[in-house]
């Protein structure tokens, strides 16, 4: 592998940094031994490297750290406030759903078609299903709290997206589910 001056110029930074495979480094070494102009260029490269690498570290003003921490604290408190609203909203929805579901005798089966035999009215959901739905809801609200707290997301929509109605409804099957009696 042979290398000319223009190629050597392009490879100088990598060569001076110790990068590159052995073949290309060997070709560079051979060329530099033969070419005074490229050797001078390598000296300049080393000088540039030394000067830039030796630039001092600059102390960051402490006010910047304070601004960062203040901004985070502000977002966290905003998140907590929104979490409170989110929790309150979810609980209100849960209370409403619970009131509707647990109301004695409700929901009822659709009215029987005229002329058909009377059918017994049964609760739409079993106790186990309602308990599962309640657990789902609690899990969702808890998860929301964690997400808001850890990520600094600020809105319910960011956390729930389109899943909010499903979260409130829990794992209850639709009332129109044909597998249910009625």
């Amino acid at each position, binding site marked *: 592998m042979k290398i000319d001056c223009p190629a050597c110029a392009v490879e100088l930074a990598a060569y001076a940094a110790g*990068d590159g495979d052995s073949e290309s480094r060997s070709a560079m070494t051979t060329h530099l031994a033969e070419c005074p102009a490229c050797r001078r260029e390598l000296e300049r490269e080393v000088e540039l490297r030394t*000067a*830039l690498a030796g630039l*001092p570290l*600059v102390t960051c003003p402490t006010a910047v*750290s304070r601004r960062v921490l203040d901004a985070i604290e502000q977002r966290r408190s905003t998140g907590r406030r929104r979490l409170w609203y989110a929790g309150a909203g979810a609980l209100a929805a849960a209370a409403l759903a619970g009131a509707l579901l647990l109301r004695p005798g409700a929901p009822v089966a659709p009215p029987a078609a005229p002329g058909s035999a009377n059918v017994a009215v049964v609760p739409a959901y079993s106790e186990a299903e309602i308990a599962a739905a309640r657990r789902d809801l609690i899990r969702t609200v808890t998860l929301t709290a964690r997400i808001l707290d850890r*990520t600094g997301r600020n809105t319910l929509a960011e956390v729930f997206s389109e899943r909010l109605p499903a979260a409130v409804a829990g794992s209850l099957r639709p009332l129109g589910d044909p597998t249910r009696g009625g």
Partner: protein
Amino acid sequence: MKHSTFTELLESHRDRVYTQALYSLRERRDAEDVTQEAFLRLWRQGGEVPADKVAPWLAHVTRNLCIDQCRRRAAARRHLGVADPDAMDSLASTAGADDDPLRNLDLDDRQRQLVDALQTLPAETRSVMLMHYYEGRKLADIAVALGKSVSAVKVQVHRARHSLRLAIRAGGAGEATAEHRGTA
């Protein structure tokens, strides 16, 4: 991410981030803003950045923020119709009554010339030079970070070296700026 963990990261990396931004932007307030934003983004990651990757992650974010800031400056120049970038910089400096942030640093003449000359490079080229020569990152790693081939980065560094030399000869600005203007 725990608040205490984040505070430790902030304390241990802030000088590095600030220095990178300052050498890249050469303006104290911009460097402070970039530093602040870089750490806010780290916090928003919520601990998803592995501990041993925080430094390169911050360097990468800082580089991008600096490039964005340079683009905003360029857009402001175009908007205001300021033909000479140096005039814009001196205008900003005067308006902000901002001291030269590098004035009190222990730089030798060569380093001061180089830092001035770096400002004449396009933002991305400047960031490549700082990543390689100041941060010591390999050209292959830089190529991966920028989504370029290693050859393209080598050529970019070679041209930037040439531009720096021209800029130093011209007193820190001028020829190199003319060579690169429009590519920033």
